[in-house]
C-alpha cells in the first residue's frame, strides 16, 4: 500500500504542489491530471525517490521509501518519458536486459513471446534505432508483460502509440489490477479501464495557486 501525506515539491523558484495526500490500495488505479508543466512528472519522479520532496512523507507498506530503498524498488516499476532502450541493441536484447536489471531472468522464448504480444512480430531482432517511434515505445512497454512488480508508475504510457496499442495497454492494466496490483499514471489522451473505478488527482497550474485536488 502506498501512502503519501502532505507532500510538497518545488523546482527552481516555482512551488509545484503542496499538501498533497493520498493512499493507494491494492487493486486501485489513479490518474494524475494537469496541464503541461503542472508537475505530474515531478510527482511521479518524487514517488520513485529521484527527487527529494520539500516536505511530506511517502510510505510503502508503512516504511519510508528512502529507507526501504531496494526493498521498495523490487516492488515497483517506473516507465518515464524516455524509453530506456539502447539504439544499438535489438528489442529482444533490450527486453532481456531491462528485465534482468529489475531482477527478472528472462529466457529468449519468453522475451520473444512478450514482444510479439506487443505487436512487434518480425521486428524482434532489428536494432531498435531503425524502429518507428511507436515501436520503440512498445519495446519499452513490453516490460509490463514480464514484470512482477506490484506498483506501476507510468508517465504518459500512451505517447506515440496507435489505437490498437492503446487498447492493449488498457487490457494489461486491467489484468494487473485484477491481480491486486496498483497503478499510477499520467496521460493527456483518454484511457478507459473497464470495470474499475478510476481515481483522479488534478494538479493545478503553479501560477494559479499551487495544490492538488482529489476526485
Amino acid at each position, binding site marked *: 500500500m502506498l501512502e503519501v501525506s502532505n507532500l510538497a515539491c518545488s523546482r527552481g523558484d516555482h512551488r509545484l504542489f503542496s499538501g498533497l495526500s493520498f493512499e493507494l490500495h491494492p487493486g486501485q488505479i489513479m490518474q494524475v491530471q494537469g496541464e503541461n508543466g503542472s508537475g505530474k512528472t515531478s510527482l511521479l519522479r518524487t514517488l520513485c525517490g*529521484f527527487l*527529494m520532496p520539500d516536505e511530506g512523507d511517502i510510505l510503502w507498506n508503512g516504511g519510508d521509501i528512502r529507507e526501504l530503498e531496494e*526493498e521498495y524498488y523490487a516492488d*515497483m516499476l517506473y516507465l518515464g518519458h*524516455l524509453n*530506456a532502450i539502447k539504439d544499438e*541493441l535489438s528489442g529482444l536484447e533490450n527486453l532481456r*536486459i531491462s528485465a534482468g536489471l*529489475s531482477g527478472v*531472468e528472462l529466457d529468449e522464448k519468453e522475451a520473444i513471446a512478450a514482444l510479439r504480444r506487443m505487436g512487434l512480430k518480425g521486428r524482434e531482432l532489428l536494432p531498435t534505432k531503425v524502429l518507428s517511434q511507436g515501436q520503440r515505445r512498445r519495446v519499452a512497454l513490453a516490460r509490463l508483460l514480464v514484470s512482477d512488480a506490484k506498483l506501476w508508475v507510468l508517465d504518459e504510457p500512451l505517447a506515440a502509440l496507435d489505437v490498437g496499442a492503446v487498447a492493449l495497454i488498457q487490457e494489461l492494466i486491467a489484468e494487473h489490477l485484477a491481480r491486486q496490483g496498483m497503478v499510477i499514471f499520467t496521460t493527456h489522451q483518454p484511457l478507459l479501464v473497464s470495470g474499475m473505478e478510476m481515481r483522479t488527482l488534478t494538479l493545478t497550474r503553479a501560477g494559479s495557486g499551487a495544490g492538488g485536488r482529489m476526485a
Partner: protein
Amino acid sequence: MSGLFMLVIRRDLMLAMRRRADVLTTLIFFVMVVSLFPLGVGPEMDMLRKMAPGVLWVAALLSSMLSLGRLFSADHLDGTLEQMMLAPQSLSMLVLGKMAAHWMVSGLPLVLMAPVLGIQFDMSAEALGILIVGLLLGTPILSMIGGIGAALTLGLRGGGVLLSLLVLPLCIPVLIFGTGAVEAVSTGLSVASHLSLLGALLVLALAFTPWVTAQALRISME
C-alpha cells in the same frame, strides 16, 4: 548480487562490440600519442629509452580519459540510468560492473598493445614486463577514479574536458608509481615496493570508488 554484476558487464561489452569504432579510436589514439614522440624527439635511443615509461603511461591515462565521457552519459540520455537506479540491487555493484566493462574495453587493449610500442623505444625485456604488470594494476584504477568524475559531470556541458580536469590530478599517484616501477628496473632500485603501492591503491579504489560513484550518480540524477 554478482548476477547483476555479470549482466552489466555483458551488456556493456555487447554495446561496445556494436560500436567497434569507439574501441578502436581509443587504441589508435594511444598508438598515435606514443609514436609521435620518437618523431618529435629524434632517434637518440638513450633518451627514448628514458622517456618510454613516462610516455606510455601518460598516453594510457589520456586515452582512458577520452573514453570515460561516455561511461554514463549515453545511459543517462536514453533513460537507462534511471532504470538502473531503480534496480532492486545495490547500485555500487552495478557501477562496479560498468567500470569493469570500461576497463576491458579501453584499458585491457592498451595493456596488450603496450609491449609492441615499448619495443619502438628499445625497452629491455625486463622493463617491458614490469611495464605490463604496472599497467595491469594501474589501468583499472584509472577507470575507477574516472568513474567518479564521469558520474559527477553527468549531464553537464563541456563534459569531456571538465571530467578530465577533475580526474587527472587524482590520477597522478598512479602515474608516478607506475613509471617509478619501470625506472626502478634500470636504476636497480626496488621494483616491488612501487608495484605493491600500486596494488594497495587498487585495493583502496576497489573498496571505495564504486560506492562514491553511486553516491555521485544519485546526486547527479536529482
